[in-house]
């Protein structure tokens, strides 16, 4: 496939609400550029019950906008000639609830957690995690398995040569529950076994008659090693073969695409991983959708890159918006709102968005409320990510004398915000915020980066398309990603530490150079409790010397200066001295005034 001449590419992402099509064209300079975009409601529901309807509608919009004839009736025209046809069609999908899995392992903090990471990395929503020691009684586990209707099950357990009985016990529960797949009545539920090799025969004996059993390499061959790739690969193969084949219209769609349809989050994750590896940076991404929020991280840990993805299945901005309120609580949402609002009225507004999920904020106050909810959804999703993106648990570390004072436990989180280099935001509320600075402040408020962190957003939500394109043509995907997809917002400098508002925090000297020349040197002392914006363009560069006060750290240690040179972005340089962790005042009136000042200084919602 890499060798095929690709000049015109059409790609779709069939989301739970909307199907988005993009056109990528190779121009006369030989560059791949994204040129047109179309969208239409996804049609996996009544009365259409056929995903291809939405795909055709989205492609028709691309046809209308671009003037290129892509479809001949309901057929895609191949290959591209002049202003007709395309060379390849590729797609991702999360429609119909995406890929929903149940995972199980022998021990909750070890093999079950590894199984969870494997499923999440493959783009699944994990419905539940079962383990011998999860605190539930046998009949409760069986009842739970039976009540869920997953698309597939991943069963792990035991290191190679380790426990057999614990993993067989879980298999016996699965067999007794005899769970049915979510879609389609006619096929038997796929179960992937990726556990102790010595238990394979017993697992076959228990599960082969009740499910379609697939056996792959152990995801935890030893306590010190996690081997997630083979299980992830198997999950994605089965997603296409079994799950998508049952969804309305996917049989047809499968024939149209040239490479397998990828689950949307898997494609986004693949792209973030590729960027982190190629740039040699620690990167994170967040994709906030209507129903779910995905968080991705790729950090270097002990000279290895570790990629993690988590999905918060009920944190989103439309279908799940009421759940954001339920999980965060009203006070946490209201702390981002700079005006008084009747709480009963707010509750009704949020529920109305839940039942009419495609509506958009029309007034400024409605936008502020929506972005307050987004901050909380992002914060909660990030908290969940930190809990799962951890080092392997149960590993005995060999400590040298120099480690004597290093108390890092096994299972500590791998997400170190001070070491984060690049943070990418995606999804409607971030990609389509009326102002880019709103996206930037939402990302800063909810993830609280520390030290120096570059921030960017996905321009028009095309990371899924580029993720699947990367599996066909990495160079084309990278080129479009850099030139059209990624919109650099700028740099955030946030000293870690806390002190009273107004106390000494940071002295900076900022030298901004634009293509037209150097701007006057800025030298400022910034006290605690400020969020300041220094506008910069994408082509501008800044050279910053930051001297934190004794109790603050910008990456070099407490009170130690840092000197960095970096490029600008659509928003610019943000210096955030609100402290890390950043705590808002308890008093409502004081807090509202402070928030109003920050929003004003940042130019968030001004006329």
């Amino acid at each position: 496939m890499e060798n095929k001449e690709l000049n015109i590419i059409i790609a779709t992402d069939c989301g739970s609400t909307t199907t988005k099509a993009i056109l990528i064209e190779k121009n006369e300079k030989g560059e791949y550029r994204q040129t047109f975009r179309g969208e239409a409601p996804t049609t996996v529901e009544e009365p259409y019950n056929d995903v291809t309807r939405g795909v055709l509608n989205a492609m028709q919009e691309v046809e209308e906008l671009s003037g290129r004839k892509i479809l001949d009736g309901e057929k895609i025209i191949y290959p591209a000639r002049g202003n007709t046809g395309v060379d390849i069609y590729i797609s991702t999908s999360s429609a119909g609830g995406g890929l929903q899995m149940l995972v199980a392992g022998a021990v909750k903090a070890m093999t079950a957690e590894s199984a969870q990471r494997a499923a999440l990395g493959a783009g699944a929503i994990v419905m539940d995690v079962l383990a011998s020691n999860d605190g539930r009684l046998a009949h409760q586990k069986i009842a739970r398995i039976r009540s869920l209707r997953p698309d597939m099950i991943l069963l792990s357990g035991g290191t190679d040569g380790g426990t057999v009985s614990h993993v067989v016990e879980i298999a016996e529960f699965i067999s007794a529950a005899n769970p049915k797949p979510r879609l389609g009545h006619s096929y038997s539920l796929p179960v992937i076994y990726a556990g102790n090799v010595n238990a394979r025969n017993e697992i076959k004996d228990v599960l082969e008659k009740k499910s379609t059993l697939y056996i792959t390499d152990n995801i935890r061959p030893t306590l010190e090693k996690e081997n997630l790739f083979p299980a992830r690969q198997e999950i994605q193969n089965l997603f296409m073969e079994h799950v998508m084949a049952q969804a309305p219209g996917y049989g047809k769609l499968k024939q149209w695409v040239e490479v397998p349809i990828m689950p949307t989050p898997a494609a986004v994750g693949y792209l973030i991983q590729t960027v982190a590896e190629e740039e040699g940076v620690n990167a994170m991404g967040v994709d906030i959708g209507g129903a779910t929020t995905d968080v991705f991280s790729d950090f270097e840990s002990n000279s290895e890159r570790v990629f993690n993805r988590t999905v918060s299945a009920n944190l989103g901005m439309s279908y799940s918006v009421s759940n954001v309120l339920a999980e965060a609580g009203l006070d946490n949402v209201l702390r981002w709102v700079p005006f008084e609002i009747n709480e009963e009225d707010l509750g009704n507004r949020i529920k109305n968005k839940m039942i009419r999920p495609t509506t958009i904020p029309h007034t400024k106050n409605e936008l502020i409320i929506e972005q307050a909810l987004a901050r909380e959804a992002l914060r909660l999703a990030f908290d969940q990510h930190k809990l799962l993106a951890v080092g392997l648990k149960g590993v005995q570390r060999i400590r040298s004398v120099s480690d004597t004072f290093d108390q890092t436990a096994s299972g500590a989180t791998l997400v170190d915000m001070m070491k984060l280099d690049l943070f990418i935001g995606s999804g409607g509320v971030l990609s389509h915020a009326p102002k880019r600075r709103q996206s930037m402040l939402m990302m800063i408020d909810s993830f609280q980066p520390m030290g120096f962190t570059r921030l960017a957003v996905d321009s028009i939500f095309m990371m899924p398309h580029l993720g699947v394109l990367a599996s066909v043509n990495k160079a084309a995907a990278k080129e479009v990603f850099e030139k059209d997809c990624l919109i650099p917002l700028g740099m955030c400098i946030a000293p870690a530490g806390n002190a009273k508002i107004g106390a000494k925090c940071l002295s900076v000297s900022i030298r901004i150079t634009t293509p037209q020349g150097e701007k006057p040197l800025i030298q400022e002392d910034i006290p605690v409790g400020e969020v300041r914006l220094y506008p910069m363009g994408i082509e501008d560069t800044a050279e910053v010397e930051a001297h934190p006060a004794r109790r603050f750290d910008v990456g070099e240690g407490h009170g130690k200066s840092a000197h960095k040179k970096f490029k600008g972005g659509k928003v610019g340089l943000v210096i955030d001295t609100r402290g890390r962790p950043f705590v808002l005042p308890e008093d409502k009136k004081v807090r509202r005034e402070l928030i109003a000042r920050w929003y004003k200084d940042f130019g968030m919602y001004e006329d």
Partner: protein
Amino acid sequence: MAHVFTPGLQVIAETIIEKDRSLPIPGKVFVKSGDRVKAEDVIAEAEIPNDIQSMNVVNLLSVMPKEIHQFMLKKEGDPVEEHEPIAQNKPFLGIKLFQSIVRSPFKGTIERISDVTGQVLIRKPPRRITLLAYIDGVVKNVAENLGAEIETACAFIQGIFGIGGEAFGELTMVSPEPSHALDEADITESHAGKILVGGSHISHRAFKKAMEMGVKGIIVGGFHAKDLKNILGYELGVAITGDEDVKTTLIVTEGFGKMAMADRTFDLLRKNQGRRVSISGRTQIRAGVMRPEIIVTFSDKEAQSVKAHVPKAETGIQIGDEVRIIREPFFGRLGNIMELPPELTKIETEAKVRVMKVKLASTGEVVTIPRANVELIEV
């Protein structure tokens, strides 16, 4: 982007609908094609596999898993009675007093005996579930062992949100007009077993009283989010409902808050006062959208002249169409489309979106609304 608009809820005075009634697993179907059924008739039943319990027999007998079969008194598939011995070890020194006996905790069947884990799985006898017809009508098709399709001539109304499952009873108007809010005093003992229609709202206390009085269902324009939390006992996170433990099914036609029921809906319900009605609060606003529904079934004589409603052809939205605004600041207002500017327009939030100009029915004022914030009213 002509396709991007919210389809309206159906409010149809006369139509023919088919309801697919299915068991969750294969069972017995008691009706045949052409049979006339009442909403409360049982049309099918099935036996659902019941709970299972595991007993670690080898631990209880202090033996090794591989030896389990030597000590079992039952084999896989055998029925067992409550307290019946299922396994025992050999008496120590032949003294029965020191013998361990494992007894079944309930009546059931031995499902599995594992010589790897030493577990024995015992399953309780199956549970019987029944499937009701849900609407008065005629059996059109039968799906072997699964259920049947029932057809009826009716008035059909969709709500926007509901809680509680299926219910049927006599449709009773309580509110005199769509803007009237139901209060505690409006609910009386005479409403037991009935489906009540309110106007703009029902208070928490009135809804509680309705449940106490045995009211089968309430249809109302609006409901407060905080009252929903009080009724359910938890904050509803996603709009997937229908299995709540409430005695009275609630159907909201407009949204959360105090909202006058749309005249068309109210008038159609008033027209059908006193008739038998089947309702379901089941709502799913996610994959497989499902809205709560009100089905007023017609008599045979009335049904003769009824034809199936043909939905308006999919032409998108057009100038002159009647729409309802479904977001603040004009939430709930009705109007007609005056203009559909093709270009993106900057709204108050500074977002550039597709908009429409709508003449409000109540005031004649022309307002600019994002296209995403209206729903089409089906005529």
